[in-house]
């Protein structure tokens, strides 16, 4: 006697059919149930439509636009790094007096009796 399939069983059966892995007993079950067979045929037609849908091709300008953006980002990144270094660099107005101070201190130390 044929029993009604549960939702989970229908799901397993349809997924199997869509993946081309329908088991023998499932195929028999479909033969016994015309309503289910019709449902599966609609399911497979929809899948066929999806698979046959032509793929969208990227506009030819896309690659060059992406590469231009990446290049700009790379240049901007280098500039930002240089600016960061400049920010942390000690200015000459500070370095020269410190060096002079060190020299004078060294002279005084060595010149002391």
């Amino acid at each position: 006697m044929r029993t009604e399939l549960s939702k989970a069983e229908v799901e397993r059966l349809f997924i199997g059919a869509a993946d081309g892995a329908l088991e023998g007993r499932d195929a028999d079950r479909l033969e016994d149930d015309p309503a289910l067979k019709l449902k599966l045929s609609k399911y497979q037609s929809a899948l066929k439509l999806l698979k046959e849908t032509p793929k969208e091709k990227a506009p030819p300008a896309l690659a060059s636009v992406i590469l231009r953006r990446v290049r700009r980002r790379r240049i901007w990144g280098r500039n930002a790094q240089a600016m960061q270094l400049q920010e942390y660099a000690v200015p000459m107005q500070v370095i020269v007096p410190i060096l002079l101070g060190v020299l004078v201190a060294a002279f005084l130390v060595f010149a002391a009796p």
Partner: protein
Amino acid sequence: MTSEVLELPAHELDLATRPAAIAPVVELPESLLLARLRRKDPAAFEQLVKTHQDRVFDFCVRMVGDREEAFDLTQEIFVSIHLHLDKFRHDAKLSTWIFRISKNHCLNRLKYLKRRGRGRSDDYGEANELAINDSVGAPSGPDELLEASRERAWVHRAIAELDEDQRMLVALRDIEGLSYEEIVEITELPEGTVKSRLHRAREKLVGILERLEQQAAHRGE
């Protein structure tokens, strides 16, 4: 959303049927390409873009249902890939990683569009359908071509009516033809969940296609 997106005039967006303006590059094996990408070789990145741009663009069109949005989105995705190349786990497949980034960008963009009240083009209007038909080759007269074009438009509309997650699974499995293992890695969902959500999405799709067919029959098309 960055304001850095480079806008192109509409006529340049519809150039899909024209021969590519950029010369094709010789394809490298993935391991070699990855090694060069790690060295930040610009030529390797160029090859990566050229190899994957069509699939990413197609996925974006399915997800957002708008070629202009998909164009911007694909730019964002590749810039993001360039930025995060160091984070790529080398035991994974490059294409899977790219789809994962694409999925995240698409879902974020859909959220943004929902907040903003939809995209640049109409929701899924006639104009967009026409653009899609043009890009994949418009019917040149005979009834079969007209029928094929109509079916294509129905498929686009039906996909657009699915929930975001369902749309993503249908796009990855039934359009891009990825394996369940790859989809599991991209979506971070268990295989059983992927299969059952995919099944529900397909069932919904069947219902939508039936409805569209009935509407067309009612209009006497």
